């Protein structure tokens, strides 16, 4: 459970990303695929050649979902239920990959925010993304 302070940290960082979901999302995916090539196995439906347009589109989708999670931090389970169902029944992404995504997300934040990515923000986001990941895999079995 995130404390009030941690929620504020998460929201504060999100204010800096809101409106830029597509480029941030694309960068997140590029980092994920470059650093952890095995994650590409889940994105065959985007086409064998992941061009910039596909990355921007899918990246935006993913980051907008994170935006929903930020908006509904108090009731993540309800807010993310449809996505959680999709991951359980259709996508079936092995949960180990959520940690890889979370890490790359934090690298994106750190590289853009630099000094402003304080240790408190880092801690809050790691915790928040772990909670999102947990909700995503809750319906798996």
């Amino acid at each position, binding site marked *: 459970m995130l404390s009030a302070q941690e929620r504020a940290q998460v929201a504060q960082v999100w204010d800096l990303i809101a409106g830029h979901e597509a480029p941030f999302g694309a960068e997140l995916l590029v980092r994920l695929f*470059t*650093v952890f090539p095995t994650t590409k196995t889940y994105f065959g439906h985007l086409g064998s050649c992941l061009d910039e347009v596909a990355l921007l589109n899918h990246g935006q989708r993913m980051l907008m979902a994170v935006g929903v999670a930020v908006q509904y931090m108090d009731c993540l389970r309800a807010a993310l239920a449809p996505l959680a169902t999709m991951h359980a029944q259709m996508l079936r992404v092995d949960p180990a990959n959520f940690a890889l995504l979370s*890490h790359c997300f934090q*690298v994106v934040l*750190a*590289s853009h925010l*630099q000094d402003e990515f304080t*240790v408190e923000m880092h*801690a809050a986001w790691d915790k928040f993304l772990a909670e999102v990941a947990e909700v995503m895999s809750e319906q798996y079995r």
Partner: protein
Amino acid sequence: MVHLTAEEKAAITGLWAKVNVEETGGEALGRLLVVYPWTQRFFDTFGNLSSPSAIMGNPKVKAHGKKVLTSFEDAIKNMDNLKDTFAKLSELHCDKLHVDPENFRLLGNVMVIVLASHFGKDFTPQVQAAWQKLVSGVATALSHKYH
């Protein structure tokens, strides 16, 4: 055994040349202790770890962080032979320090985030990939002598 291409090695050494070992080490270790508070279990003698600012400002954390990152320099000088380079340290971490190797992976990832925050756009996906390979290789080498 980690296999780094010439390009990956260049990416690593190129960045390392600009790293402030003293500050970066302290920051990485400090962030580990804040973000993953259970890692504080190894540092009971370090004094005040009661808050993020206490941890980040703690002189023992800074000193130990510097020590850890200085030994990372050995990794960079011996990228083709991490197992032998870290054999003694691996024995120490198993037999004397009793550190779960999972902690090496956690610290490696925190280091990558610290480097990203310092180098911004220069910390490209390719540079990140090279460093992830290295920190993963070091973590494996440090766990090699565990029994």
